[in-house]
């Protein structure tokens, strides 16, 4: 009578999950060939679990943290840069408007006919009146814009210095 041996898949699955435990253990009691194959896989599995790769260098953590810190400064200054760009743009518009009335002029010169097509009372005239009556608000905004521009300039200079200092240190 021919013996039906365990397949390699059966043996690997048994070692992984102890699936078909009874079937496999009963079989290897009477089958030297399968017992040998099982032992062979067992020793391979043991070797694989202890097959450590070479160690990382001692200062890996330190160097990686330095890179991460540099990156964090980069991210922070980028975030700041976006904000400062927006505020600078607003500040520049207010600045131009204060001296030249540029926003009002654009609307008044280019769009009066369109607005008059719908109503006699132009929205742009309302804007013009608002600006005339709240000139102090414009001044406050303008002043805030200048302050922000100043801080943006100082911060960008300082953050560049910080990054350079860390780079030199890590080298």
């Amino acid at each position, binding site marked *: 009578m021919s013996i039906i041996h365990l397949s390699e898949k059966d043996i690997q699955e048994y070692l992984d999950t102890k699936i078909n435990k009874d079937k496999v253990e009963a079989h290897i009691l009477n089958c030297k060939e399968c017992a040998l194959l099982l032992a062979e896989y067992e020793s391979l599995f043991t070797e*694989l679990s202890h097959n450590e790769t070479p160690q990382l260098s001692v200062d890996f953590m330190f160097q990686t943290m330095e890179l991460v810190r540099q990156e964090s400064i980069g991210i922070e200054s980028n975030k700041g840069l976006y904000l400062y760009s927006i505020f600078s743009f607003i500040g520049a518009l207010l600045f131009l408007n204060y001296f030249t009335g540029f926003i009002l002029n654009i609307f008044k010169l280019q769009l009066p006919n369109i607005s008059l097509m719908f109503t006699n009372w132009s929205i742009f005239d309302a804007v013009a009146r608002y600006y005339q009556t709240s000139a102090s608000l414009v001044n406050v905004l303008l002043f805030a814009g200048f302050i922000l521009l100043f801080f943006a300039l100082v911060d960008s200079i300082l953050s560049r210095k910080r990054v350079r200092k860390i780079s030199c240190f890590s080298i």
Partner: protein
Amino acid sequence: METKVNENTLVQQILDGQVDEFQKIIEKYQKLVWHLVSKIVKSQADREDVSQDIFVKVYKNLNSFKFESKLSTWIGRIAYNSAINFIQKKKPELYEDISPGGVTLDSLASTNVNPANFVGSQNVNAILKKEIMNLPIQYKTIVTLYHLDEMNYNEIAEITTLPIGTVKSHLFRARKLLKDRLELKYTKEDLCQ
């Protein structure tokens, strides 16, 4: 479960600006990253650079981490993709790297060493290491994640973006291949001792 909560808190702290807390993530996952990188990138000189880049990438993309998945599989996936991208860019150089230090099975077979002296010694481990390195990338990655990092099929599938069935069959074939290759060098009895 508790580990996941702790990890989520840690990630949140880093996102809130506590950069130094990232050190804990490096400590915990440097082994996983190193295992993956050292199996995929052949050049020893490049391995640490790639590993560092992976952690910087992890930090940069931490805000896109979905707290639903495990941090280990998320980092593992970044490491796997980064290492694969690296070797795809540096293919010609890596080819040269294989030959000088690499010992093939043929060269081992030609040495006149009694196999009995090897068994139980560090040499079996060294040969196994070399044979693992000769496996296809997906095979050695799966073997490493399963046996060294003790990940399950689902986690490996998530990292490698392979279906679970493929992960299982790759793992089976890789181990069979390793066993067959070692058998070429040693007798079955020697390996089982």
